[in-house]
């Protein structure tokens, strides 16, 4: 009955076309859920401000972050220098703006670096189990038995200061968090009814990984990246503060706090404004991370 088939097909196509008009895409639904979450939206605005400042730093300020001015040392906030000047007479606000670039660069690179390693190893160990799982998880146990900052300091100490050494030092420790989370997610997906159902209709192993396991593990990975971003920011600032991170002349929030510490009583604006910048960025990313966690979960319906 080919005519009936044709009619069925046309009817179905028509039905779907009508429905698609009224329906919004999955991404749009995620956005709606995200927007409903007030804190997440505030976080988004905060992060956008940070991004804009990083991009427009040279336009926003007339000063150079590295040009010293010995006659204007430790000036309090004024009309010329909104946040005052530091111990070498550099404009604090300008250095704060340029520090945004370093902070974002390091944050993103750390997250990318540790995320790539951690998610890959987490998938491998969760899916294949056995020997691979044992090796990866014991490595995680060993790395996690050290205090993160101490280990990163040791690594940075061995390799010397510099942006890329900070990234590598943080990544070597940081990936363990991703690996654990992704692994446990994959283990729970592997035991789920829908994977068993996929086996019962004859899906191959490769197809089960690509079509069933990975799409369901993806939100966990995205959320992890968003939540780990502030951790990476704080950790890199801590390293700079301790003097094993970004090299001193570079405008960096962590080293600014560290440098301002000696003048905390007579020029408190140096350390506090850098501390506030870190808090602002970290808070923004945290709010976004929480918002993503809620928005990406398809089981939480729009209510």
């Amino acid at each position, binding site marked *: 009955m080919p005519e009936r088939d044709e009619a069925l097909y046309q009817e*179905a196509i028509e039905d779907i076309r009508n429905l698609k008009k009224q329906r919004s895409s999955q991404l749009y639904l995620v956005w709606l859920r995200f927007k409903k979450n007030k804190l997440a939206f505030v976080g988004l605005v905060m992060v956008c401000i940070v991004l804009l400042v990083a991009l427009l730093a040279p336009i926003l300020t007339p000063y150079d972050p590295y040009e010293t001015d010995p006659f204007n040392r430790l000036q309090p906030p004024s009309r010329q220098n909104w946040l005052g000047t530091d111990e070498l007479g550099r404009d604090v606000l300008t250095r704060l703006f340029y520090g945004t670039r370093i902070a974002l660069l390091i944050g993103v690179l750390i997250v990318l670096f540790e995320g790539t390693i951690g998610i890959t190893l987490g998938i491998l160990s969760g899916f294949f189990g056995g020997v691979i799982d044992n090796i990866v998880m014991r490595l995680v146990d060993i790395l996690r038995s050290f205090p993160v900052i101490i280990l990163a300091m040791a690594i940075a100490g061995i390799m010397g200061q510099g942006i890329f050494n900070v990234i590598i030092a943080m990544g070597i420790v940081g990936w363990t968090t991703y690996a654990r989370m992704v692994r446990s997610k994959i283990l729970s997906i592997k035991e*789920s*009814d829908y994977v068993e*159902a*996929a086996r*019962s*209709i004859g899906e191959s192993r490769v197809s089960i990984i690509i*079509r069933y396991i990975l799409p369901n593990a993806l939100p966990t990975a995205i959320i992890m990246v968003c939540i780990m971003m502030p951790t990476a920011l704080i950790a890199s600032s801590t390293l700079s503060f301790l003097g094993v991170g970004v090299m001193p002349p570079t405008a960096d929030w962590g080293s600014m706090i560290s440098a301002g510490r000696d003048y905390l009583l007579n020029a408190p604006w140096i350390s506090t404004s850098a501390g506030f910048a870190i808090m602002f960025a970290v808070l923004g990313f945290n709010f976004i991370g929480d918002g993503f966690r809620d928005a990406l979960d*398809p*089981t939480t319906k729009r209510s």
Partner: protein
Amino acid sequence: MSESWLSVKNLSKHFDTSKGPLKAVDSVSLDVNKGDSYGLVGESGCGKSTLIRTILRLLEPTSGEIFLEGREIAKASRQSIRNLRRKMSLVFQSPHSSLNPRMTVYDTLARPLLVHGITRNKKDTTIEIVRLLKLMGLQAEHMIRYPHELSGGQKQRIAIARALAVGPEIVFLDEPTSALDVSVQTKILKLLDLAKKEKQLTYFYISHDINLIRVVSDKMGVMYLGKLVEIGETSTIMKKPFHPYAVGLFKAVPDPDPDKKLPELLLTGEVPSPVNTPSGCVFHPRCPFTWDRCRKEVPVLLKQEDGRGVACHKYS
């Protein structure tokens, strides 16, 4: 070897635990004829689900044989298991967890068709999916929906449609209605019945719900602690169960008459652990008729005059 269409012989599935083997299914034999509805009833944890998953070869059998149309499938190779997947399919208890939350209904139903090369182009696939949806009383527009946009009953109908998509001969139904509202249960059962007639299917229900088994099955089995204790025609067993466990289980069903008192509990005590099964008859610690022989000797399923089989020393 056997004339039955699906025949299971002495099938066992043991899981290794730190305390010793867990006998989830222990030496079970049963026969299903083509076109029948077979109902397997038993309390949760008695091994019903493990049994059907072993027959479906989603779990490796520990020992025993399974014949489908006279062909041994318990030791079938990977390639022949793939072919088996077209003949036997499974509907899960909970439609909320058996559908991939990241797949639309279209993809969920297209996968079995594409995996087995049943349809080759997009148009044929779409037509086949619309047919399956219509058979399950759904509309073509449901195709582009995600599971979380559907109600429990709709999800279960999608899950049934997926099981039917491969064009199976037998469908295993693992408590297909117990996760659904009562009002939806009847609808699902009616749709299942309709599909059975249209596609000449064989059904294998498992449930803890005796009333469901009473309504849907022609033949039935009662399972306790990994073993079949009574098998036969549903009408015969329902009228008068022989095995003391079956008697107790059926008596435990409350009567819908409010004037009647709640039934007296014949089954006392707890189900023993399947790791440490009692000696002899596994039911003897809870059985009101236990005597010496029950503690020492494992009873076998013996055929009675009316055609049923009972594994109890009382009837041997």
